[in-house]
C-alpha cells in the first residue's frame, strides 16, 4: 500500500525528543518487523502517537497482516474481552505494561514497543483483501469491528490527497489518535505523498504540544468539534502559528457560531478551514465543504469527496430526487467498508456492502446539491467524535441493572432505570470506567416504570432528554 522507497530520503516523522526518521528507515524497520510476522495473521496493534506505532501499522498493512487498531491505554477488561473473542496470534504494544504470564512471549523489540507471540494459531489465513479493523465506538470495548480492505484505505487516502491538495511539503501534527478512523486517515493520506508527520503523545491542552508544533513548522491541525471548543478557549487565534495553512474538522457537528468564528479568523490569517463528514464504516471521510462555500453554505456537510457521492432514500427505499426533502443519507464509493465483524468467523466474510453505505443519518439536499444533516435514524449518539450506540450501552448496563433505557443527544447520555439497588454514582462510575467517556456526559434518573406501548415497545419519546 505504501511505497516507502520512492521517498527514501524524505523525513516521515519528527518527535518531541528531537528524533526523526526517514521513509528509508521506516522501510527498513517495517521489513525487520515483518520478518517476525506470519502473513495474513491477525495482529492487535496498541497505538500511541509515536514512531513505533507507525512502524507497526505500516508493517502490517504493507505485509498483508490484519491490524486491529486499539488505544494503548484501553481498559484491561475491554482488552481481554477482545483477546478472548478474536484470539490474535500477535500483539504489537508498548513494552511497559506487558503481562508476560497472560499476554505471551516477546519475540521482537523496537524502541519502546515489543511484538508478542500469544501462542494462538491462525488455522486459516485471513482473506487477502482484509487489511485493518477499527472499533465502532472508540474505546467503549464493544467487540463489534469495522472491516476495511486495502482498496478502502487506498481510495480514501487518494481522495483526501486530492481535495486537500496534500503534497510532500505538508507537516501535520497528530492531534488525534491512530486507532480513530479520522486520525488514521491523516496518517494514510500523508504517507501516500511522502509528507512529514509531527508525532507527539502530548495533548493540545498542553503548552508542549504547541511549542513542538511551532518549532517544527506545522502546516495543518485536525480535530473533532470538542477540539475546536478547546482551541477557542485557548484563544487559538492570538497564538502565533506562522506556518499553519490548514485546519480540518470532522467527527460530529460543530455549531454554526463556532464554525463561523474559525472560518472568518482563518481567512484573515491565511488559514483554510475544511469541514468534513465521515464515518469509520466508510474508512473515514465521505464529504467535505469546499472552503469557498464555507460561509455561504454554513452548516452543510458539502458534497461527496472525489470518487464518491451521496443520495437520499425515503422509508420505502426509493430515491428522493427533489431538493429540501429529508431522507436517509446514503453514500456510494470505493471507501465503503466490507462490513462488520463481531466474532472471528466474521473476519472471513466477503464484501457485504458492495460500496454502498446507509449512514443512519437523516439529511436533505439544497437546490445547489449541498447536503445538510437533519438528525439521526438509528439510536446513536456522537460523543467526542465517537459514535456511541445507545443499545450497546444498555447491553453493558444490563449486566448490573434489571431494567434500564438510555436516551440522549450529542452532549449527554441519560440512563433511566427502575432498579433502586444501584445509585447514580455507582452506575456512572461503571460507565466512565467501561467507556472512558467524560463523567459529566452521564446522568441517571430513577423512575417507577419504563413507559411502554400496548405492544410492549419502549416509548422513548416519553423519556425526556431535557
Amino acid at each position, binding site marked *: 500500500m505504501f511505497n516507502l522507497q520512492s521517498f527514501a530520503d524524505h523525513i516521515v516523522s519528527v518527535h518531541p525528543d528531537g528524533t526523526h526518521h526517514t521513509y528509508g528507515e521506516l522501510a527498513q524497520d517495517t521489513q525487520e518487523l515483518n520478518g517476525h510476522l506470519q502473513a495474513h495473521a491477525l495482529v492487535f496493534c496498541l497505538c500511541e502517537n509515536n514512531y513505533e506505532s507507525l512502524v507497526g501499522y505500516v508493517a502490517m498493512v504493507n505485509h498483508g497482516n490484519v491490524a486491529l487498531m486499539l488505544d494503548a*491505554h484501553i481498559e484491561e477488561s475491554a482488552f481481554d474481552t477482545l483477546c478472548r473473542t478474536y484470539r490474535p496470534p500477535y500483539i504489537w504494544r508498548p513494552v511497559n505494561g506487558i503481562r508476560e504470564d497472560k499476554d505471551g512471549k516477546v519475540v521482537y523489540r523496537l524502541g519502546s514497543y515489543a511484538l508478542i507471540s500469544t501462542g494462538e494459531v491462525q488455522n486459516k489465513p485471513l482473506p487477502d483483501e482484509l487489511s485493518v479493523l477499527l472499533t465502532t465506538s472508540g474505546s467503549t470495548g464493544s467487540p463489534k469491528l469495522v472491516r476495511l480492505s486495502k482498496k478502502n484505505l487506498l481510495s480514501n487516502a487518494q481522495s483526501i490527497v486530492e481535495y486537500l491538495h496534500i503534497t510532500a511539503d505538508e507537516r501535520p501534527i497528530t492531534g488525534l489518535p491512530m486507532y480513530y478512523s479520522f486520525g488514521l486517515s491523516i496518517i494514510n493520506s500523508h504517507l501516500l505523498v511522502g509528507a512529514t508527520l509531527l508525532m507527539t503523545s502530548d*495533548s*493540545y*491542552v*498542553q*503548552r508542549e504540544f504547541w511549542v513542538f508544533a511551532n518549532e517544527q513548522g506545522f502546516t495543518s491541525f485536525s480535530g473533532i468539534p*470538542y477540539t475546536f*471548543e*478547546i482551541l477557542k*478557549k*485557548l*484563544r487559538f487565534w*492570538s*497564538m502565533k502559528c506562522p506556518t499553519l495553512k490548514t485546519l480540518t474538522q470532522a467527527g460530529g457537528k460543530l455549531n454554526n457560531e463556532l464554525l463561523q468564528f474559525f472560518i472568518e479568523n482563518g481567512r484573515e490569517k491565511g488559514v483554510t478551514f475544511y469541514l468534513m463528514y465521515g464515518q469509520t464504516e466508510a474508512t473515514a471521510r465521505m464529504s467535505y465543504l469546499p472552503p469557498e462555500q464555507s460561509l455561504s453554505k454554513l452548516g452543510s456537510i458539502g458534497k461527496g469527496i472525489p470518487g464518491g457521492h451521496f443520495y437520499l432514500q425515503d422509508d420505502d427505499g426509493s430515491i428522493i430526487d427533489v431538493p429540501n426533502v429529508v431522507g436517509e443519507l446514503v453514500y456510494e464509493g470505493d471507501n465503503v467498508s466490507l462490513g462488520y465483524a463481531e466474532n472471528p468467523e466474521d473476519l472471513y466474510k466477503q464484501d457485504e456492502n458492495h460500496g454502498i453505505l446507509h449512514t443512519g443519518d437523516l439529511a436533505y439536499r439544497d437546490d445547489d446539491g449541498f447536503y445538510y444533516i437533519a438528525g439521526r435514524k438509528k439510536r446513536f449518539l456522537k460523543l*467526542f467524535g465517537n459514535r456511541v450506540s445507545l443499545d450497546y450501552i444498555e447491553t453493558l448496563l444490563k449486566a448490573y441493572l434489571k431494567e434500564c433505557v438510555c436516551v440522549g443527544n450529542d452532549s449527554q447520555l441519560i440512563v433511566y432505570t427502575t432498579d433502586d439497588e444501584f445509585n447514580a*454514582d455507582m452506575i*456512572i*462510575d461503571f460507565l*466512565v470506567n467501561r467507556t472512558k467517556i*467524560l*463523567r*459529566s456526559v452521564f446522568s441517571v434518573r430513577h423512575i417507577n416504570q419504563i413507559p411502554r406501548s400496548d405492544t410492549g415497545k419502549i416509548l422513548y419519546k416519553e423519556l425526556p432528554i431535557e
Partner: protein
Amino acid sequence: MSNTLNTYNAVFRKTFGLSEEQLSQLEYKVYPEWNSMAHLALISALEEELDINFEADDIFAFKSYDQGKDLLHERFGLNF
C-alpha cells in the same frame, strides 16, 4: 473551610466523581480520568463557579489539585 475552597472542591468532586479526601493527590494525566477532555470541563466549571476567566497560559499551567490553588491565588487573588 473558606467559600472559595468549598467551591473549588465541589467542582473537582463533580468533575471526577470523587470524595473530598481523594482530591489532594489529583494530577493532570497522572489520574487517568483527568484527560484533555476532563481538563476543559474542569476549567469551564471553575470559570463559571468562581467567576474568573482563564487565559491560555493559565489553562496550560493548571496541572494538579494542589498547584491549581496556588495558581488561582497568584492570578486572581483568590484565598483558600
